[in-house]
């Protein structure tokens, strides 16, 4: 798997990740200050997608597995959260847990099937199984088909935080994002993460050293699916909507695009990529299908000449891995 080798290899010089703390601090400051200057709903969308892209990057960047069906976790978690909050009347924290747990379970099943093949087949299998989830959501009565679940109540978090206030909702979303981000950061810098990277670089060798590669892959897959589900659950509460868009394959493509543009296998790349793609879509929204064309052009451009992505190139420029 040489997919992200060049971006991970070049700036591997210093082991002290001090500059990463600086970068993290800048990111936190940016997101704390941003809602006072930018439309908060837009920022919340960016944060949800940033978490989604970070979760996706955990698989492609650190295990070398390209999942082309991550929309399944985002979307189904959104549906379950919306259903729990609206129909069952559950409080937001329980609704989010329900959605996230659904994604985790789905990740366990799909992951167990998909890791039976490698490389290109893995991508096709995840895509096909996600399409199956899409058709399920299209037909199941509780998702309300094309209409989706609308007017989902945000509720009061833990009985204290009233999420109907936009700014409260914003900081809850920010906390969820940072929690997920730090969990991923911790994972990739743990011994577990080192084994994942070993599997990415040379799977037979990792196996010969006594690591059961399949267990590690599956665990990483479930973690990635769970965090994608967390992003989807939060998104459903933010927009008070769960719809078919979030389970469609184009959403799976979008998260690949965000991660690729930001930088595969970089810590901050998916966040940057998500912000860029979401802003782009915001500006291009009135142009209809041109959004797809622009996305396609970015894909082609990134693959042909910009494989390290924005953050990967930046990291190479300053000689540090970001």
């Amino acid at each position, binding site marked *: 798997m*040489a997919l992200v080798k060049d971006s991970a290899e070049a700036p591997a010089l210093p082991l002290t990740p001090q500059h990463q703390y600086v970068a993290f601090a800048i990111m936190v400051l940016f997101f704390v200050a941003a809602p006072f200057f930018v439309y908060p709903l837009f920022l919340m969308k960016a944060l949800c997608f940033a978490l989604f892209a970070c979760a996706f990057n955990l698989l492609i960047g650190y295990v070398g597995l*390209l999942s082309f069906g991550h929309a399944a976790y985002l979307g189904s978690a959104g549906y379950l959260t919306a259903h729990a909050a609206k129909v069952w009347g559950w409080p937001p924290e329980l609704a989010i847990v329900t959605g996230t747990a659904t994604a985790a379970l789905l990740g366990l099943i799909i992951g167990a*099937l998909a890791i039976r*093949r490698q490389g290109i087949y893995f991508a*096709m*299998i995840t*895509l096909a199984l996600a*399409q199956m989830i899409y058709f399920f959501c299209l037909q199941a009565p509780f998702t309300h088909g094309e209409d989706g679940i609308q007017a989902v109540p945000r509720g009061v978090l833990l009985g204290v935080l009233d999420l109907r206030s936009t700014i409260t909702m914003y900081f809850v979303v920010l906390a969820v994002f940072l929690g997920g981000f730090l969990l991923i950061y911790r994972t990739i810098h743990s011994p577990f993460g080192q084994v994942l990277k070993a599997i990415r670089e040379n799977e037979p060798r990792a196996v010969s050293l006594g690591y059961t590669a399949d267990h590690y892959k599956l665990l990483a897959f479930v973690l990635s699916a769970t965090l994608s589900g967390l992003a989807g659950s939060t998104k459903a509460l933010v927009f008070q909507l769960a719809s078919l868009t979030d389970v469609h394959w184009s959403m799976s493509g979008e998260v690949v695009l965000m991660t690729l543009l930001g930088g595969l296998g970089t810590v901050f790349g998916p966040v940057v990529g998500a912000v860029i793609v979401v802003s782009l879509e915001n500006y291009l929204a009135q142009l209809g*299908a041109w959004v797809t064309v622009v996305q*396609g052009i970015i894909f082609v451009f990134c693959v042909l000449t910009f494989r390290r992505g924005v953050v990967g190139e930046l990291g190479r420029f300053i000689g540090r891995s970001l």
Partner: protein
Amino acid sequence: MSTVFGVPTQALFGQLLIGLINGSFYAILSLGLSVIFGLLNIINFAHGAQYMLGAFAAYFLLQWAGLGYWWALLLAPIVIGLFGIGLERTMLKRLYELDHLYGLLLTFGLALIIQGLFRNEFGSSGLPYSIPSQLTGGLNLGFMFLPNYRAWVIVFSLFVCLGTWYVIERTKLGSYLRAATENPVLVQAFGINVPRMITLTYGFGVGLAALAGVLAAPIYQVSPLMGADMIIVVFAVVVIGGMGSIMGSIVTGFALGIIEGLTKFFYPEASNTVIFVIMALVLLIKPAGLFGRER
């Protein structure tokens, strides 16, 4: 009305026929994917878009040049195949040294561009393309009504598939191709121009997709997104069959089409998902695919 297991045979055979038609498209498309993957090590995500381009080429030939179905059947695969060759020469060939997944991402991007452009121009609804006059009407077989055009699609698809199988498995040219799939460096050392072979192979695979598009145009309408969902099903077909064998792709394609048709009749709710369920089962029992081998 005659019945089998208490169901009307007319409707059953009708669905079986649609299943066979879909199966022909699955077979041709997965055949193209396998041939391309064998030599280029790239999964051609743009295959669905190229299938759509084939149908549109037929439509344009009729609208602009007044050339009918039979000309389209000949010209569309050539034109779209040349377009594929252009893509391979300018873009895909830069990726052979890289991980396979970049090929998937690039062709996915190309599919987005092509489908987006056509959607801008023609919207999401389909354009009608009429059945050629020689093939209108149908045959009453007693137990069902068989439209001539549909019979033609099945027979012609089988002919194309078996022809491809023959060329690859039984001719000198095919033996070069198979050898280059095994070991391109060695074949190149024997004085065969492997890069040109790769280019032509991609063009051929794309041409096959376009041919399926022309065949599909009179049955389904010509629409920008006709290949978008199709390609995902074809991926599942490829996973089920395994990409090791040409005959495997053909058999799997037709068989899954028939199974899908039967599901549509006996349990319509599952007709969209049945192929994916079968894929999951195959992965559990024989991960390499029914005709594939681990590599």
